[in-house]
C-alpha cells in the first residue's frame, strides 16, 4: 500500500511562493498547528490563504499566535479569503494600510464554494448575500481609504427566486487536521474540530492531514472514520490538543 506518512517539513516542502493554500480550523480550534509551524519555518511568501478566519493572535490566546495568525504575523500572506477576521487585528490594520487584501465571504457560502471546488460543480447558487455588497462588490470605507472586500457577482433567477452565483474555490494545498486517522488517511475530527477540515480536503491538489492519533488500517471499524482517505496525500503525526 502507498505510504503517505511524512514529517511536517517533508509534507510542506512543495508549497511555493504565490500559492493558494486552504487551512482548516475555526478560531484556532481544529487548525493543523504543526503544519503551519513547518510552513512558517520554511518561510514562503505571497500566499493566498483560504480559511474561516484569521486565527488568534498571541494577545488573544495569552500565549502564542494560533492558526492562520502565524502566517499573517510572519508576513507570508498577500490575500486572505475568509468569513470573519475581527478576532485578529492584524488583518484590519493591514487592510487599512493596503498591504493585505481581504475577501470576505459569508461563512456558509465559503464552505459551499470550497465544496463546489472539491466536488466538480460549476458554482453555488445561494440566496445568501443577495442585495448586499457581497453581490454588488461596492467598496467600503476603512477610514481614509475605500477598499474592495467582495467582487461583484452574477445573479440568476430560478423559478422566481434570485440567487447569487458563487464560484468554486480550489487551492494548491490544503492543510487539514484530524483527531484520528488510519495510515491510509481515512480520518475523523472529533466534536467541533470538524469545521472546514473535511471540506477543504476535497478541494486542493495536494492535501496534508496532521493528526493527533494515527492507527493501523483495520484497527477500528470502518464507520469510525467519517472521511475517506482517498482525499489525503500526506499524513503527519504529532498534532496535539490545544493547551489552554
Amino acid at each position, binding site marked *: 500500500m502507498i505510504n503517505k506518512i511524512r514529517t511536517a517539513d517533508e509534507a510542506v516542502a512543495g508549497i511555493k511562493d504565490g500559492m493558494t493554500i486552504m487551512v482548516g480550523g475555526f478560531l484556532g480550534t481544529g487548525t493543523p498547528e504543526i503544519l503551519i509551524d513547518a510552513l512558517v519555518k520554511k518561510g514562503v511568501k505571497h500566499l493566498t490563504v483560504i480559511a474561516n478566519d484569521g486565527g488568534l493572535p498571541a494577545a488573544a490566546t495569552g500565549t502564542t499566535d494560533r492558526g492562520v495568525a502565524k502566517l499573517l504575523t510572519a508576513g507570508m500572506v498577500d490575500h486572505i479569503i475568509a468569513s470573519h477576521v475581527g478576532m485578529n487585528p492584524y488583518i484590519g490594520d493591514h487592510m487599512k494600510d493596503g498591504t493585505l487584501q481581504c475577501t470576505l465571504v459569508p461563512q*456558509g457560502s465559503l464552505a459551499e464554494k470550497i465544496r463546489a471546488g472539491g466536488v466538480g460543480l460549476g458554482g453555488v447558487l445561494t440566496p445568501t448575500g443577495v442585495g*448586499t455588497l457581497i453581490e454588488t462588490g461596492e467598496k467600503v470605507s476603512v477610514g481614509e481609504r475605500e477598499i474592495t472586500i467582495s467582487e461583484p457577482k452574477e445573479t440568476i433567477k430560478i423559478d422566481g427566486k434570485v440567487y447569487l452565483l458563487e464560484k468554486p474555490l480550489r487551492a494548491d494545498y490544503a492543510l487539514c487536521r484530524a483527531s484520528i486517522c488510519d495510515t491510509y488517511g481515512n480520518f475523523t475530527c*472529533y466534536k467541533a474540530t470538524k469545521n472546514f477540515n473535511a471540506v477543504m480536503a476535497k478541494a486542493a491538489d495536494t492535501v496534508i492531514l496532521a493528526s493527533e492519533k494515527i492507527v493501523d488500517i483495520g484497527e477500528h471499524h470502518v464507520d469510525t472514520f467519517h472521511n475517506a482517505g482517498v482525499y489525503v496525500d500526506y499524513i503527519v503525526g504529532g498534532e496535539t490538543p490545544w493547551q489552554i
Partner: protein
Amino acid sequence: MADLKARIAKRAAQEFHDGDVANLGIGLPTMVADYLPEGVDIILHSENGFTGLAGAAEKGKEDVDVINSGGGYVTHVPHGNFFGSEESFSIIRGGHVDATVLGAMEVDDKGNLANWIVPGKMVAGMGGAMDLVVGAKKVIIAMLHTQKGAHKILEKCTLPLTAMNVVDMIITEMGVMHVTDKGLVLTERWADYSVEDIKAATGCPLIIADDLKVNPVEE
C-alpha cells in the same frame, strides 16, 4: 437596563415551541434560553458546527474540542451532534433552523437588516450572519428600541445590509412589531410605554394593531 433586556429575552422566549431548533446571537439573544416557557425544550445550533449548544464550560473543565462560534469553550447536551461547516450551513440555509434571535444595528419596515459592518470602522466580517438570517425560518430581532435615543428601526437602512426582506418580528423593551406587506405592525406594547412613546422612538410609520395587547410591567 438589565431588567429591560430580560423583558425582551423573556418575550422572545415565548416565540419558541417544544422541539424547535434555534440559533441565538451573542449578548441579549443568548439570554432567551434562560426564559423558555415550562415544557418548551429547544436545541441550540452553533454555526461553527454542532447542535446542542449548552452553557459556557466551567473553568478548568474545558473540552478543547468544543467551542462556540465566538471561540469560547462551551458544553453540549448529550443529544447534540457535531458536523463540518458545510453541513452546519446546510442546516441553516436549508430551513432546518426554526428561529434565530439576533441583535441589529438597523432594521427597516421592509424587513431589511443591517448588523455586520459600519463604514469607516474596522471590518470584522459577517461570519455566519448573512446565511443565518436568509436561512432561518423565522428571524426575530431582539434589541433595545433605540441606540442612545437614535432610531434603529427605520424606513430604510442606511448601513450596508446583512440581508434583504428577512426580518419577521422585532422585540424591544417598548413593544413587539411584525414586518408585514403593509408595513411594520405594532401588536404589543408594555404598559410603561405609550403608543406615542413608541412612535416617537421609531424611524418609520407604525401600524397599530386593532387588538394591540398591553403587557403588564413586571416588578
